[in-house]
């Protein structure tokens, strides 16, 4: 398993495609907590799917004003079809070209497989990593670790 970035590290900046004609830069989200969920691939089996779970848990994340971003090496069109099919209500970013560059910057890329790790990062409002976790690739890590980390962030005025 890769060594992912640890708490206290400033989260590496990035700008990735979020739709075929739109990019999203991490710095645009400063001021609120951000959840980065790197995952191996779109279209994994339905009911145990990590992104589908986060879609359901979204109201709990929003209680902390947190923005959730899903990131994989799939391209924008693949993400678009996947998001529509699963009715996802949060952005999926395409770490597509150069492939996996953002995942690499976070230590969350699997060279041997050419995909992202199942790695989670919770950033505070200043973009500093407050919590990170790398799950075994076949295990959906759930959302409890994210919610615990959001709860531990200093309260926002």
């Amino acid at each position, binding site marked *: 398993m890769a060594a992912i970035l640890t708490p206290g590290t400033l989260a590496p900046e990035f700008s990735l495609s979020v739709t075929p004609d739109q990019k999203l830069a991490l710095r645009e989200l400063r001021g609120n907590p951000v959840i980065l969920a790197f995952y191996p691939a779109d279209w994994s089996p339905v009911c145990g799917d990590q992104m589908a779970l986060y879609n359901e848990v979204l109201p709990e994340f929003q209680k902390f004003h947190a923005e959730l971003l899903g990131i994989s090496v799939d391209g924008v069109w693949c993400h678009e079809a996947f998001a529509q099919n699963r009715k996802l209500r949060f952005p999926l970013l395409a770490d597509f070209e150069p492939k996996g560059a953002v995942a690499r910057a976070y230590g969350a890329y699997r060279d041997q497989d050419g995909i992202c790790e199942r790695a989670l990062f919770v950033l505070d409002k200043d973009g500093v990593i407050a919590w990170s976790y790398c799950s075994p690739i076949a295990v959906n890590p759930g959302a409890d670790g994210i*919610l615990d980390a959001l709860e531990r962030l200093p309260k926002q005025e």
Partner: protein
Amino acid sequence: MSTLKIPVGPEDHVQGSADAECTLVEYGDYECPHCAHADPIVKRLQRHLGKRLRFVFRNFPLSQLHPHAEAAAETAEFAAARGKFWEMHDLIFENQSSLSLALFEKLAQQLGLSSADLLDALNRKEYEARVRADFTGGVRSGVNGTPTFFINGQRHNGPFEYEDLLAAIEPAGR
């Protein structure tokens, strides 16, 4: 290791005694095919283990994925408030291929409950908070999909065929 954060309490739907050696908690979704698959497996475990097993079912509807899951869960809670939880629970799983509001009304009537009262409760979202409380409790316990089982408070990872669950339960009960 994920552990059950919400202990089994008086609000829960429980089959079996609190003295049972093993408590199996399932977080499930009535529209999830894997949960329908697991339902007879749980029943077989209950038959095999008898008094040694206590079973608890909690709601975990993935409602963005499954359009009828929330209404199904609220229908089961409606029946629970009238002493018919397990009857409704079983009927919904048995009819999973044809879930609809009309079906829920029919099942209510079949159990001697008022379908008008059911529609009213669904419209007023009377049981929504109850279902959501199960869901959020599950999320905090590390439920990562459906079904998720907890055996004596520890999340069961991996397959959930009869032999898998039995093998996980047997040592837990000793």
